[in-house]
């Protein structure tokens, strides 16, 4: 009985959209990647400018920097989530698993909670954010390397098994976090709770600099490895055959994913289905398979979704809801659709 809505909901959507979708899809497929990136770049720039300067009145010296911080946080999150999801799907050669679904961001929350529990929330909040963030990132990378390496470096495993393990690990981390949070003093918990709620309205500006540096370094390394990533997407056997050191490259990609997830979770909290959403859209828009095009396309789609979405929420709906709610809702439906469509083979 609980399955019924999930099973019936995608069907009417599909039948309603089928007549119009055929030619549009073909036209999208035939668009060159240069054109797609160009259009997306223009749209991103427009959204960012609009966000910064629309209805800019009153105390400009106060409002503009605040908006700038918000928009840079959104761009950083778009890069971090888009790139980490794309990389993760490439090395696991699937289109459904994402770092969030595998519990990466729950792990990060757990690391934060354990630190707060051990040191006291007051210490966590008063400590220099950069130092705190640094320690959390190091712990996060160490734990994720330990946990996830056995899953992805060996021979091919069943995707169902991985998905199940990911879901269970995620719940375990969340459950453990909430246990610790309940054991805390209520006042400490309130301080901590602020950190976990995905929102672009209370980004810590001092973290932006560190986050930007981490994202830039990771993305530089990823860009240099783009040809190797193309090969990895063909699967483990083919990658080894053409001389890619599969084990080492997968470990590095998982490391990059941990770093990027840590950055985005630290900035705005966990966003589970956002990565899946932008990467799926990216594959639809990009005719080729080459990461040289996929990477920028996915990042730009993410930026448009976040900046544009926040804009619509603020200006049209007057902060009626949080952007993360809308994105998670759409992304969750897409996830169900992908599962039911049978991409999970």
């Amino acid at each position, binding site marked *: 009985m609980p399955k019924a809505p999930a099973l019936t909901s995608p069907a009417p959507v599909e039948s309603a959209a089928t007549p119009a979708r055929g030619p549009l899809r073909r036209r999208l497929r035939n668009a060159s990647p240069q054109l797609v990136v160009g259009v997306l770049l223009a749209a991103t720039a427009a959204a960012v400018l609009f966000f910064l300067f629309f209805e800019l009145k009153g105390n400009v010296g106060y409002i503009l920097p605040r908006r700038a911080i918000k928009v840079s946080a959104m761009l950083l999150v778009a890069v971090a989530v888009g790139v980490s999801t794309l990389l993760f799907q490439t090395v696991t*050669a*699937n*289109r459904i698993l994402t770092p969030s679904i595998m519990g990466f961001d729950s792990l990060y929350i757990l690391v934060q909670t354990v630190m707060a529990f051990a040191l006291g929330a007051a210490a966590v909040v008063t400590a220099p954010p950069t130092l705190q963030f640094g320690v959390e990132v190091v712990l996060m990378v160490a734990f994720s390397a330990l946990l996830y390496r056995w899953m992805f470096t060996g*021979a091919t495993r069943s995707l169902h098994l991985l998905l199940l393990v990911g879901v269970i690990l995620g719940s375990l981390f969340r459950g453990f976090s909430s246990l610790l949070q309940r054991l805390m003093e209520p006042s400490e918990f309130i301080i901590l709770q602020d950190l976990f709620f995905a929102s672009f309205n209370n980004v810590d500006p001092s973290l932006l600099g560190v986050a930007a540096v981490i994202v830039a370094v990771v993305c530089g390394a990823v860009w240099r490895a*783009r*040809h*190797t990533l*193309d*090969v990895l*997407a*063909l*699967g*483990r*056997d*083919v990658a*080894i*055959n*053409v*001389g*890619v*050191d599969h084990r080492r490259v997968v470990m590095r990609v998982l490391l990059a994913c941990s770093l990027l997830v840590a950055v985005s979770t630290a900035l705005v909290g966990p966003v589970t289905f956002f990565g899946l959403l932008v990467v799926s859209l990216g*594959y639809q828009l990009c005719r*080729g*398979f080459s990461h040289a095009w996929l990477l920028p396309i996915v990042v730009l789609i993410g930026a448009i979704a976040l900046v544009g979405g926040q804009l619509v929420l603020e200006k049209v709906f007057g902060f009626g809801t949080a952007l993360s709610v809308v994105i998670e809702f759409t992304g969750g439906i897409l996830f169900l659709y992908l599962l039911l469509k049978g991409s999970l*083979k």
Partner: protein
Amino acid sequence: MTIAVRNVSKSYGGQTVLDDVSCEIPQGGITSIIGPNGAGKSTLLSLISRLQPLGSGAVSVGGLDIASTDSRRLARTMAILRQENHLTMRLTVRDLVAFGRFPHSGGRPTVEDLATVEEAIAHLDLAPMADKFVDELSGGQRQRAFIAMVLAQDTQYLLLDEPLNNLDMKHSVEMMRLLRRLADDFGKTIVIVVHDINFASCYSDTILAMKDGRLIHQGSPRQIMQQAMLRDVYDIDIRIEEIDGNRIGVYFT
């Protein structure tokens, strides 16, 4: 320069799949590995080709020790194709075949690389569908597209795990003829796993027969294609007929 396998063993979760296998696969020509299901044929091939780490023992291919040699260096000497190849990416036949040049070009193909790709496509009669997406092809065409990819890799050693899988009679014969031509005209060393002993008999220079994780016989088709030998391998009596100088096993009745 041969493929030398020395005392190789491999086990999964306490179960031994390869038990102290040693052999030399001669340079040039086609070597077929035959044997019943679960004999360890594919495992042997994937150990030789470093797809799976060695349990114990050593393997060298063309003088290169596979455990210590740089993987990309090995990829320019030896190519391996497994029987199941699943693509999540949507790419054209030409794109797929071009990946065979990766060990040489590192992802930035030169004019010569592209010429080699076109040659490999032509060799496998894939020219008419070179711009089609791989997932739109039939099973046999897809199989040939993957073989074109390892062919484009242009290696001295070519390891194919059941290359006839998914192919109809016509394409099976064409595939074996192509392999024969590659061995005869280009001096390549080809190792294949085959189930049909008659293809092994008609097209190979050497046959390795495996059973229960061990190598039990090695020899020319004439030596292996004998009733007593095959009973050893398959536990059934197979009548051997000689037709046009080829030994054919009749095992259908």
